[in-house]
């Protein structure tokens, strides 16, 4: 393969070339960094690039392989959302508040990848504190969609999706609180998985909404997703919410087909506001799964789906208002030091946070405040219980659910930033999986208006294997995941 195409390799293809010594980690890393140099001025996917460290890690990976100690991800370049703590590498969370924060520790997922000998190319742009659906709420600059630079890449893990689609690395890490991995994956034509709550350790991820946040991979295809999940999944003593449940070899489920599987298509996800061309593309994909031998169940209903958005915009801001209370300008982060503690804290938080973060902190503070707590917060938690129960019942009648990831394809930069509810509605189809804690996957299934469309699959808790099995079968029968943007 020509050196100027190495950045396009899928992870499992690169791994094969590395294992057969046809390619070195050093060459692969140099190819990604060269690609990054040429496309980054247009895509703006990154907040920090660690070229020098990456080259050192790549050389170390080559030595690891020469010593016979190579692992599945040895020498594979990746990028990580800038809310995952990286020891000695600035971690901004897309915020002025953490603009100069250099963590003394690695997130568990970063540790696990670096132990494999993976190469960290840099940290990706995001909506501030992961609050947003377009990267336009980044305190620094918006990222652009590699398929159309006038459009957003989605968010909040927009930099991860855009950087991967543009060829700046072979896989990426993101986080998903209400769709922040799946929606940008859908917008940028890559695979994105939100694992089950508790499947992946959240240690070292800057907290947004602790009962909803999950870390997950963005990859070029399903096989790559399975390989990364094998490394990052599993219990960790530093996150007590990580589940003591054994991690299967996710690659073992690839190639099993869809024969005999029941796939539910809940009509509640084919909402008002769903673009007709997106609907058509999703219907075609579901038809394809049926042709391959899956049983399509259109009688599956999740009637409370329409309440998930309101419940989410109470629960997530409530948790955020508590989590973000730690930013007081005393221990780390942006600090305005005035005569009294009170003045200092007010000024630090008033100047350090951007408008969207302030809005959400205030929403949550209001929902938790005396006189409103029962009407808002407790009510939302009860609705959450109902939504969870509806999923439980649905998964007694079918093995998976299929629906669109987002009601629209990527939208133009600037088109929703002044319309709060339009922006929030962008996550209407992804939020329910976070509310219920179940795993969900977005994979490319076609194009509408020249932009990628994502098919979303959901399964019951800890059944990531089913998502990968079905996603892989779909990719065996289609070539949407092989399309790359012309940049």
């Amino acid at each position, binding site marked *: 393969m020509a050196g100027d195409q190495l950045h396009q390799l899928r992870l499992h293809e690169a791994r094969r070339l590395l294992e057969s010594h046809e390619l070195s980690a050093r060459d692969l890393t140099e190819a990604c960094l060269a690609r990054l140099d040429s496309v980054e001025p247009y895509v703006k996917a990154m907040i920090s690039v660690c070229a020098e460290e990456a080259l050192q890690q790549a050389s170390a990976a080559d030595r690891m392989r020469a010593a016979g100690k190579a692992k599945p991800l040895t020498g594979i370049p990746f990028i990580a959302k800038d809310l995952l703590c990286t020891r000695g590498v600035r971690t901004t969370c897309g915020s002025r508040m953490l603009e100069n924060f250099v963590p*003394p520790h690695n997130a568990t997922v970063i540790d696990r990848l670096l132990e494999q000998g993976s190469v960290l190319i840099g940290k990706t742009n995001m909506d501030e504190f992961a609050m947003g659906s377009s990267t336009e709420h980044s305190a620094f600059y918006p990222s652009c969609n590699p398929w159309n630079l006038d459009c957003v890449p989605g968010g909040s893990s927009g930099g991860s999706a855009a950087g991967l689609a543009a060829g700046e690395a072979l896989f990426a890490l993101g986080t998903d609180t209400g769709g922040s991995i799946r929606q940008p994956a859908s917008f940028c034509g890559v695979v994105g998985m939100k694992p089950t709550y508790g499947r992946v350790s959240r240690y070292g991820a800057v907290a947004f909404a602790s009962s909803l946040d999950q870390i997950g991979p963005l990859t070029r295809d399903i096989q790559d997703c399975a390989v990364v999940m094998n490394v990052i999944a599993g219990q960790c003593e530093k996150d007590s919410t990580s589940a003591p449940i054994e991690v299967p070899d996710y690659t073992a489920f690839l190639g099993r087909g869809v024969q005999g599987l029941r796939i539910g298509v809940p009509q509640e996800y084919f909402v008002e506001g769903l673009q007709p061309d997106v609907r058509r593309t999703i219907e075609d994909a579901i038809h394809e799964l049926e042709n391959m031998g899956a049983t399509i169940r259109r009688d599956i209903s999740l009637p409370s789906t*329409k309440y998930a958005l309101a419940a989410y915009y109470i629960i997530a801001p409530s948790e955020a208002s508590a989590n973000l209370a730690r930013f007081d300008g005393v221990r780390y982060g942006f600090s305005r030091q005035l005569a009294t503690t009170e003045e200092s804290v007010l000024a630090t938080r008033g100047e350090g946070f951007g408008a969207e973060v302030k809005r959400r902190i205030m*929403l949550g503070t209001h929902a938790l405040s005396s006189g409103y707590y029962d009407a808002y917060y407790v009510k939302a938690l009860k609705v959450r219980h109902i939504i969870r129960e509806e999923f439980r019942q649905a998964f007694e009648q079918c093995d998976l659910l299929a629906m669109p990831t987002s009601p629209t394809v990527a939208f133009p930069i600037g088109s929703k930033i002044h319309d709060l509810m339009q922006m929030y509605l962008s996550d209407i189809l992804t939020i329910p999986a976070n509310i219920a804690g179940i795993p969900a996957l977005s994979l490319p299934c076609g194009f509408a208006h020249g932009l990628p469309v994502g098919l979303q699959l959901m399964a019951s808790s800890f059944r990531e294997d089913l998502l990968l099995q079905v996603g892989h079968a779909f990719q065996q029968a289609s070539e949407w995941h092989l399309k790359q943007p012309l940049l």
Partner: protein
Amino acid sequence: MLSNEQVRHIAWLARLGVTDAEVERFRDDLSIVLEHFHALGEVNTDHVPAAAHASRLQNVFREDVPQPSLPFDEVLANAPSTQDSCLRVPPILE
């Protein structure tokens, strides 16, 4: 619809310094979102338990074993103001 007074109260509870222009803006923004919350009133939640999380785990315990923690200087390296391995803050008592 929230009043400016309510917005100032919420901002104070959240310890957020806000300008007069922000008060106006957040009053309108928050009112729009709160309006959407009313939809939840349609849902009958009598006898429904509140689900604070979706995890199956309850009360996770571990042995309390002393372990090395991060070095002082590394932890304090990000602090805006320190003195003698301590964080410096304004006085809170006269």
